[in-house]
């Protein structure tokens, strides 16, 4: 352990010059793109990979999410994918020799109304049926776990029950980005930050390569779209429309304080979630803004709403100060499930998009499965239900209930 302290190692770089051709070009150097590159190299020996990102490494939603991980989804398809991801997260620090500070503190989704109680019961039951550790807990136990919560009956919406998911928790999101980046580069992949893709060349129904903001053309056998808020505009570059609408999602963080609470607490009824990081800050967020937008600017109204709802849950927080707010743009699909895999119209163009507000949690499993798809040419069972074609076949995978505010 102590030896690790003095380890001064090259994480990545220096910056490469783009080559004229790669086996695989991945658009978007966030958790999804980086893990895809890493698993391609590690599991399949495919190392001729370029990752292109229009901002800095992990500057999109990988750096803007609130770093919560969990597997307590509400469909068998979702549960399978996110469970795979949580399993990978658990072993990731060791595998990449980079501590990502995973803390499985337990994840609690509060229910304040009858229908919400039904909702958490339903999720607990399907979780149990599929081997995910979840159960319904009642106000007494909630109060014991998080004494700071106002579990009294005088609140406007008294807490009636909660879905408790012990393995849920948080991980340092930037560390996940850096760990994967380090791992991918060590195996030969190249990361090119501040390189914007402006076009994708397609001929004879197959993708040929991408064009970048500096005017160069980069050939590729396979192009992967691992972007988020702008994924529909990237996909449009190959002439394909995807049912994605972009919304803003906002979050904020308080000044650090001594340990105040030790669980992730989510309230879908109050549109807010709160947890305390290792540094002592309280991270809080809301659901997506109700209107669609590509704006990167945070809003006053959402900040007021988050603070108001958090204080409603935790009256003790009213004198704690908010240090910073920020927002990201999320690619929402009609069923709140992602779009993964090939598109019928264009060969060798792979989608890993539509991740809405829950992409970070699934980063490892997505990369793992997308890498398998690229290397073997076969779509792994785990991601089959998430094909783009499901929208034409009335085969959507509804995660609305589990994904809305439950980050």
């Amino acid at each position, binding site marked *: 352990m102590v030896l690790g302290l003095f380890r001064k190692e090259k994480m990545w770089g220096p910056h490469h010059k783009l080559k004229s051709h790669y086996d695989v070009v991945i658009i978007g150097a966030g958790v999804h793109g980086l893990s895809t590159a890493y698993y391609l190299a590690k599991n399949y020996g495919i190392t001729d990979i370029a990752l292109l990102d229009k901002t800095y490494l992990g500057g999109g939603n990988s750096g803007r999410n609130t770093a919560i991980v969990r597997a307590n989804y509400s469909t068998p398809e979702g549960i399978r994918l996110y469970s795979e991801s949580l399993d990978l997260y658990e072993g990731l620090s060791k595998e990449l020799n980079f501590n990502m500070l995973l803390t499985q503190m337990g994840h609690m989704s509060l229910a304040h109304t009858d229908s919400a109680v039904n909702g958490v019961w339903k999720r607990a039951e399907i979780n149990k049926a599929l081997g995910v550790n979840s159960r319904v807990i009642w106000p007494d136990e909630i109060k014991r776990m998080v004494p700071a919560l106002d579990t009294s009956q005088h609140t406007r919406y008294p807490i009636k029950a909660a879905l408790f998911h012990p393995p849920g928790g948080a991980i340092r999101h930037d560390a996940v980005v850096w760990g994967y980046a380090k791992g991918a580069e060590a195996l030969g992949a190249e990361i090119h930050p501040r390189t914007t893709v402006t076009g994708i060349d397609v001929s004879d129904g197959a993708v040929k390569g991408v064009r970048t903001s500096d005017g160069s053309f980069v050939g590729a056998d396979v192009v992967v779209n691992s972007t988020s808020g702008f994924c529909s505009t990237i996909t449009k570059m190959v002439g394909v429309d995807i049912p994605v609408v972009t919304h803003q999602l906002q979050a904020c963080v308080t000044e650090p304080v001594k340990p105040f609470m030790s669980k992730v607490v989510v309230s879908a009824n109050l549109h807010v979630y709160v947890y305390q990081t290792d540094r002592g800050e309280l991270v809080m967020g809301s659901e997506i803004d109700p209107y669609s937008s590509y704006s990167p600017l945070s809003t006053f109204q959402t900040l007021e709403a988050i603070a108001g709802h*958090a204080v409603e849950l935790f009256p003790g927080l009213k004198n704690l100060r908010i240090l910073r707010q920020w927002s990201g743009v999320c690619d929402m699909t009609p069923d709140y499930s992602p779009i993964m895999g090939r598109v019928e119209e264009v060969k060798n163009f792979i989608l890993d998009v539509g991740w809405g507000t829950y992409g970070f949690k699934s980063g490892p499993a997505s990369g793992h499965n997308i890498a398998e798809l690229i290397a073997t040419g076969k779509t792994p069972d785990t991601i089959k239900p998430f094909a783009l074609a499901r929208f034409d076949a009335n085969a959507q995978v509804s995660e609305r209930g589990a994904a809305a505010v439950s980050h």
Partner: protein
Amino acid sequence: MISAYEGDTVASALYASGVRTFSRSFLFHRKRGLLCVSGRCPNCMVTVDGVPNVRACCEPAREGMKVKRQNGWPSTDTDIFSGVQLIERFLPVGFYYKTFINFPTEWANTQPMIRRLTGRGSVKQELARWNAQAASGGHGDRFEKQYLHPDVVVVGGGPAGVFAALAASRAGASAVLVHDQPSLGGHLRFEGDTVDLGSVEGAEEFSGMRGYELAAKLDRLARAEENLRVYDNANAFGLYESNEVGVVQGNKMLKLRAKQLIISTGAGEYLTVFKNNDLPGVLLGSGVRRMLALYGVPPGKNAVVVTNNDSGLSLANALLEAGVKVSAFADARTKVDTSSPRFEALRKSGAILLTGYSIKEAEGGGRVTGATLIRLDENGAATAGTEKSFKCDTICLANGFEPDAALLTQARCRVSYDEALGEFIPSESPASVQTCGDVTGIHDLRCAFLQANIAGLQAASGLASATKAPAGKLNELSASLKSAETAYRDRLASQGPRPIIGIVSEPTDGKGRKPEMNGFACICEDVKEKELAQAVEEGFRDIEILKRYSTLTMGPCEGKMCATPGVGICARETGRSIADAGRTVSRPPYLPVPMGALAGPGLHPVKLTAMHYKHLEAGATLMDMGEWKRPHVYTSVFEEYSAVRTKVGIIDLSTLGRLDVKGRDAPKLLDFIYTHTMSKLQNGKSRYGVICDDAGAILDDGTVTRLGEDHYFITTSTGNIDFVEQWLTWWAVAKKWEAQVTNLTSGFAAVNVAGPRARDLLRTLTDVDLSTEKFPYMASGSGLVAGVPCILLRIGFVGETGWEIHFPAEYGEYFWDRLMEAGRPFGIMPFGVETQRLLRLEKMHVIVSQDTDALSTPYEANMAWVVKLDKEDFVGKAALTFAKDEVPQRRLVGFTVEGEVVPHDGDQAFSPDGSTLIGVVTSCRYSPAAQKPVGLALIRSDLSADGGTFLVASGTSKLNAKITFVPFYDPEGRRLKE
């Protein structure tokens, strides 16, 4: 116990009484003292009356307040955790990423320990919701909000802000000025020099007096100005889209929306990086000026002043005037004219004057005892062997200002490095945002005056109420500004380049030994210079990821102390210019804002029905349904159930959404929204209707009643009224159809009177013919019931003869009383939501969103009959046309189980052999009619054959469920049609 003068802050009172250590640092628990004295740095955060992280230097001292220092145990003066310093070299940048890797054991064990060490102050876990003590002023939990919509908002109360506010309001604009000080005038309040604004028109009234005199005059003028409102001690923390400014003033939040904004937030000093730069006794020059001028508290007895700009000299003189000895004065610039009278005064006092010198190290342990100064070469690099050491108890740093441009960057102004000014200055502000004063990077009062007048006139120029500025006035001001700015820049250029930007780099000793780089780049998070250097070496070259890896600028000062030095270090280590290294994006809020202020008074709407208090009298337990309170149950479900099935029951349905849709195109609109054909509905008839989305999934259900040719009355589910109203209105507008949608929900109340004696009861109160011949099932009518005008719908959600009666809400209690009274002979009982759920379940009537989910189509819910594909286009038609011929993935089925155990709503359904998950129980109750548990389940359609079975996992039991599509009660529906 500490005494204070009126006007003292907590910090000035503590300092005057000898306190020097104000806090312990975040990671190493080092002693920290006053530094900025302006609320910008993290050093003086204390707990005041239980509120953590209060900036002592900005908090007015009040009688009886309890102040506690933070982050030390057992106390801030003696902190056992300061031992962390001893192992400091084991804690390099990002150390936590590199250690404790063997998850789960090592990190899981270490994490709780680290958590206790980090964090500042603590929040009481429990705080009473209404804290009486808080009403006494100061911090507490009574928060309020105020909304203002002036023409112009000026942020910043320095000279530029006041000049601009005066100019704008004198030109006819209504203006609001917010600033964070108790009085206006900014830095002029502590300037003794005579002000000369030059020979510009309008400047005469402000020239020829001392700085503090002008400050007082500006304060007077601004408060006397009719069109101008001044908010003191008010912090503007956010600038949002559409010129919305968020301001916190004590426990009040101001929300300002202005046509024009003038940003004159000034500039702040930042910390310089050198060894021991965090010792108590190291203070920023502007902070010292504040202490001397505003509170009369000298920082020490013996000071060393370190500067690289003109502010250092004024500071040194101010110290002398206050009786503080200046041992040494080091100006990093070489071309400074040291013959001025002020230098003369310094020299006379015995101070050693050094040009081309800066600081290498603060000496002392726990507090400053001396300073080591060092000579810089022409590139600004320190030269080994030129050190000079001075004894002192205070080191004043006047090493550069940085424009407070955070609000501007929030409004998407770019910030770029101006090589000549040596500062990051804002550029390209949006048309509705003007800037003036120090925030532009020009630290010159003449320029500020001209900028402010231009800003004020421009802000007012577009307003209808404003007087037009005389033609040419703006041009004239602009020309004057141009020449004044050129003069300022020329003067700077004549003093040679600014030799150090945020950091005094250590000399290399020529023997290849690495510099120590032990200074603190970031005092919030205890990040040292060497750690940034190491991070760059590891690959974190981009300022954005360097920030995230090292946590530079991410602490409570949000970069106010460390952004510029951090860029300086990043630039040096990556071999780039400061301009190329760039700046990280600043995010709101500009300064930390209490959550209570954002939350406001915390008023939450509660909707009560017109009969609410009657329900309370009857002993109902209530439940929340959306914003409404509804009776859940009155006596017991069984009693209420029996009353409805055998006699008569009454339920309050006031919470149902109600819409009135009128107009030529109303039938067309409803045909388009509902899956059913509503244009063919006969006058006086009602119909069950389902609304679907584009994918054919059910959004809402309710009844549609035709009141006339172009007139409909619609009910929606309780929670969906707002959505359905918007949905109808949106489509009426989108299609350009003539249809008015009016929300009647709160104007009406409603009850359902149901049961075999319902007709007998109602006949005692109305002349409306309720016979089945005249008023059959699904008919509607209107008339007086108990003298109250009503709409009656014959609907049977609970499966009995019954009428849903809608009537004006003001008759609520009267109507309820009359029904209860008249019903007594018939055995009437009120029933709640829980009883209704059971009654409807026995009839297999679906509750949308409980028995369906976000993807359920009418086909899945066995409601193919509500979908009319033979009409023109409607929402969801394409998807439903497709779905009609497909076997649905899932199907809603009825089921019964044998035995005592009643499955819970939400229990999971498995294939008969128990191997496969096939769906979910959506509703289940014990049915008195069937004498067994009955329910609905949404399961895989290939396993949903009538008479088939599946397993339900309920708790520890697995129950055999038998599928049926026949309602559990009155399958022929005879009773509701009787």
